[in-house]
């Protein structure tokens, strides 16, 4: 049953793929050919009718259904996809189509620097050494013997903003490099005690087993909450998210949660790797660049209504997500009059620290053009800035990282919803 406008997108899955030329062409071919057979990823043949919709019985209560299976598939009517970047080194989560706060693992954003490695979990090892009294090698199975812990938190790429986006841009493309999972693994502190970390150690290096052999230095202040995780939403971590094990640095820029983790070294100074010098740093005022800026500042985005929704005059439930790497979200506020006035939105529990929180706000639209927007306020009192406030604080040339401006959606007179365009220079 489709009972509201939010589901319009889901009822027309091919609309989501209009930016993919090949897909659009295939949809066109299917239409021309009438009913065709299509094969799903699991090898199941389904009949696809004209218009690319799977064929189903007119009355499902009159036909015995399919039997139990070893691995579940989403409905063949559901076609949510990540959008991959030009170089295929990243993909983005369809924020505008998700509900609640957990990102399905298959839709978790990706960012990798030399592709997704193929790793046999039985051969993978984690070596922990440096300023420790007992250098240790752990297999994945041995890591799983330690006391386990689970935590729900977001992971966000620090470059999570499509800067000069045009009107026809989805929330997925604006901010789809944030996703949320329940991660399960071992607290770093457990492993630290096991290897006997020298109390003078104040930096650690995390290194991946991918072709980039990606490394990040993590300062001591983040160790208490850090984890080494092997599970994501109850199953093994997905390959593109670090299978078989990854570092997890809650609230911090995604690249510091080093994937395919194979080595941890404890030391007494930062290693100054390429990712923390020439890459994930940002010029700030004073002619200098900010380094080890790991914490993700508070941010929010309205996911409904957003492009390409259309809305009608009358009551509209605005929905979105808010999050902060500094801790809990204290409030999400919504403006429906282009930022002139703000209203506290309802926060849908549980409100967890360093986690996406869903917010909702009902408003009665009079049908006249307006801009709707949201802002996050976190437990430290930090308020998500406007683009102008951000530019004033950092300067126009601060680069692509850690940009968290308020995002607006323009409700046009006819009901079309488009991205509120802003120039970043």
């Amino acid at each position, binding site marked *: *049953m489709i*009972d*509201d406008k939010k*589901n319009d997108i889901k009822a027309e899955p091919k609309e989501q793929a209009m930016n993919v030329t090949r897909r659009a062409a295939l949809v066109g071919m299917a239409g021309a050919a009438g009913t065709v057979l299509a094969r799903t990823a699991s090898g199941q043949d389904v009949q696809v009718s004209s218009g690319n919709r799977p064929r189903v019985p007119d009355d499902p209560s009159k036909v015995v259904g399919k039997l139990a299976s070893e691995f579940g598939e989403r409905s063949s009517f559901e076609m949510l996809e990540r959008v991959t970047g030009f170089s295929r080194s990243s993909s983005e989560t369809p924020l505008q189509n998700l509900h609640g706060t957990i990102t399905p693992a298959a839709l978790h954003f990706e960012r990798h620097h*030399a592709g997704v490695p193929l790793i046999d979990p039985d051969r993978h090892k984690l*070596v922990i*050494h440096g300023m420790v009294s*007992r250098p*240790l*090698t752990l297999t994945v199975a041995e*890591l799983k*013997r330690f006391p386990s*812990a689970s*935590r729900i938190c977001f992971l966000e790429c620090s470059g999570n903003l499509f800067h000069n986006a045009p009107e026809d841009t989805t929330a997925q493309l604006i901010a789809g490099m944030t996703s949320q999972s329940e991660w399960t693994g071992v*607290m770093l*502190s*457990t492993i630290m005690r*096991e290897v006997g970390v020298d109390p003078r150690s104040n930096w650690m*290096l995390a*290194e991946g087993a991918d072709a980039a*052999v990606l*490394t990040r230095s993590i300062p001591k202040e983040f160790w208490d909450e850090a984890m080494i995780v092997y599970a994501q939403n109850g199953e093994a971590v997905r390959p593109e998210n670090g299978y078989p094990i990854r570092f997890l640095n809650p609230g911090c820029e995604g690249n510091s949660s080093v994937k395919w983790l*194979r*080595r941890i*070294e404890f*030391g007494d100074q930062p*290693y*100054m*790797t*390429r990712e923390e*010098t*020439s890459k994930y740093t940002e*010029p700030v*005022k*004073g*002619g*200098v*660049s*900010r380094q*080890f*800026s790991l*914490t993700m*500042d508070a941010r929010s985005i309205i996911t409904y209504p957003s492009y390409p929704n259309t809305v009608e005059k009358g009551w509209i439930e605005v929905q979105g997500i808010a999050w902060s790497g500094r*801790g809990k979200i*204290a*409030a999400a*506020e919504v403006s429906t009059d282009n930022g002139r006035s703000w209203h*506290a939105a309802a926060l*849908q*529990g549980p409100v967890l620290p360093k986690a996406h929180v869903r917010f*909702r706000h009902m408003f009665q639209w009079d049908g006249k053009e307006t801009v709707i927007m949201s802002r996050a306020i976190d*437990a430290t*009192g*930090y308020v998500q*800035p406007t683009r102008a406030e951000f530019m004033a*604080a*950092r300067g*126009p*040339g601060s*680069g692509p990282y850690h940009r968290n401006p308020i995002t607006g959606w323009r409700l046009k007179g006819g009901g079309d919803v488009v991205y509120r365009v802003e120039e970043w220079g």
Partner: protein
Amino acid sequence: MRARVSRTTEVLCISPAFFLLLACTPPEFSIAEEEGERPIIYGFGSPATVEEIAAWDIDVRPDGKGLPPGSGTAAKGSEIYALKCAACHGANGEGGLNDRLVVSSPDEQFPDSSDANSWQHRTVGNYWPYATTLFDYIRRSMPFTLPGSLQSDEVYSLTAHLLHLNHIISESDEMNATTLPKVVMPAHGKFVLDDRQEHQEVH
């Protein structure tokens, strides 16, 4: 079918008193990882051997710790660069499929955030603060299609070539475990640690 969303969630109203209250609350997150009895160590896994560590411990710090024996010069590096790097980074490091590596002139300054275009002009010569990072990164990740395939002498030579193209060392300067950490990069001292947490507003 999509369930209707409950509307019972409390609406938070923000007042200064609210933040005062938050300031007094205990730390937001802790996992009671081990309740009850626990040993000093569990004894899982096996001691990491010297060989195991040596095979993977390839990081190089700014003070030179981690640099292997070997050496190279820009003259040698130039030949390797043409063969293994130029396809992505341009014949003279001007960039192509991938990053620009070389400043357009010796005067190219460190990016200034007041200049909207400065971000596009980051290179080894004006933005990399440590020469050792070049060695570390080339050795672990390059060339993109054959990562980890270069010998130490080749990595020293390529490092020297890029430093030379960026007007930092001369063509005949030998780079090795002693000389490389002593190279002072133009961007040295231009980086500050994160201080955003000291600010409640955007910073």
